[in-house]
């Protein structure tokens, strides 16, 4: 029951995740950041089996960091997503598959383009302009399908994010009190407050 979605424009990506950690009927933590920074211009949001999420993410983060240190150059978002998907796929048919759903969002310095990759727990990957994981996707795709255009600006994208919050508030079973909103563009990654929208 986690919210996880993202919208990509030509040169920016907005990533949104909720902030609750739930165990059975108890909210264990209400300000968890469910995104992991892979490099200054790439991040991934992760939801799914608790434990698998941090285990897998830390492993990927460590390897992406090692690549940067070894080669004095960061892995691009597409390279990170492909590497990540490969690791998920390898684990899938082993004794210990990871149950994590991932969105990789980033800005590629070399091509000057932003990109978003949807990767599910079966290691299927798709490069998409906008995406969501979980039950929320049933509600959010309707909003994003209607509102998104390829030449979208950051302001319009944040507007769509606001509309997504509204539909979740009005129709989704769970009330999300707080979200982590991050924007990646050529200047790096920054966090926005919900109030700023």
């Amino acid at each position: 029951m986690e919210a996880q979605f993202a919208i990509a424009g030509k040169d920016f990506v907005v990533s949104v995740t909720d902030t609750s950690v739930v165990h059975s009927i108890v909210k264990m933590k209400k300000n968890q950041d469910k995104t992991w920074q892979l490099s200054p211009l790439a991040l991934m949001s992760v939801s799914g089996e608790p434990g698998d999420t941090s285990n897998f993410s830390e492993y990927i983060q460590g390897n992406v960091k090692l690549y940067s240190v070894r080669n004095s150059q960061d892995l691009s978002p597409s390279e990170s997503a492909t590497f990540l998907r490969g690791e998920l796929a390898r684990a899938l048919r082993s004794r210990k598959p990871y149950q994590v759903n991932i969105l990789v969002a980033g800005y590629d310095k070399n091509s000057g383009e932003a990109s978003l990759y949807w990767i599910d727990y079966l290691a299927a990957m798709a490069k998409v302009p906008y995406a969501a994981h979980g039950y929320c996707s049933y509600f959010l795709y309707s909003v994003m399908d209607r509102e998104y255009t390829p030449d979208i600006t950051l302001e319009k994208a944040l507007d769509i994010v606001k509309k997504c919050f509204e539909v979740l508030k009005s129709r989704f079973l769970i009330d999300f009190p707080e979200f982590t909103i991050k924007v990646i563009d050529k200047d790096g990654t920054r966090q926005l407050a919900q109030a700023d929208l």
Partner: protein
Amino acid sequence: MSYDRALTIFSPDGHLFQVEYAQEAVRKGTCAVGICGTDSVILGVEKKAALKLQDSRTMRKIHRLDDNIFIASAGLVADARVLVDMARVECQNHRLTVEDAPSVEFITHYIAAVQQRYTQSGGRRPFGISTLIVGFDPDNSPKLFQTDPSGIYYEWKANSIGRNSQTVREFLEKHYTEDIAEADAIKLAVKSLLEVVQTGAKNIEILVITKDGHRTPDIGEIESVIKVIEAEKAEEAEKKASKRSSS
């Protein structure tokens, strides 16, 4: 019986000859100097002159191990490449297991342990390099460590490795002061390297590390430091000459 062939054999008078020969290889490598200041650490290296058709960008002597830890080596370059990569992986391993940046001593200990292992087991030869490992600990204190082929490591306030390192070390012993500031440390590093590097700025590379990051002064900045040093030397010489003529 010759005691310098197999690695894991002591000689009758207690020497491990292979290790000592490895230290000889280090003495043939280009010079590197490290200076620890109050809020900065300086690494200076003698750059080997690039051959005409060679791309000098690929001749790196200073390598980054982690966000604020760097390493310079003297000796066999290929051995350095292997050891540097092992250290890089270990830094990320440390971050993965304890979710904290490694301290300079931690990674030095690891590198030294690897170098020692190769003097005792596996029938392999030792790494033919000494290293200077510099950086800032998570508590923002500057550190400088040295390792050598035998696997020892020591912390230093200032040190040098490679060819003519003895000359440079004596120079540092004479001129190093505690609480040296960043600008003075850069000048000292350049000055000490100039003792052994004849050809000036184009064969010197400096790395300046502070708690907030690192920078590589460009050749212009190094040249201006050299100018200051030469001006000071000329002043000193003049003073000596005038004293001699007046007395």
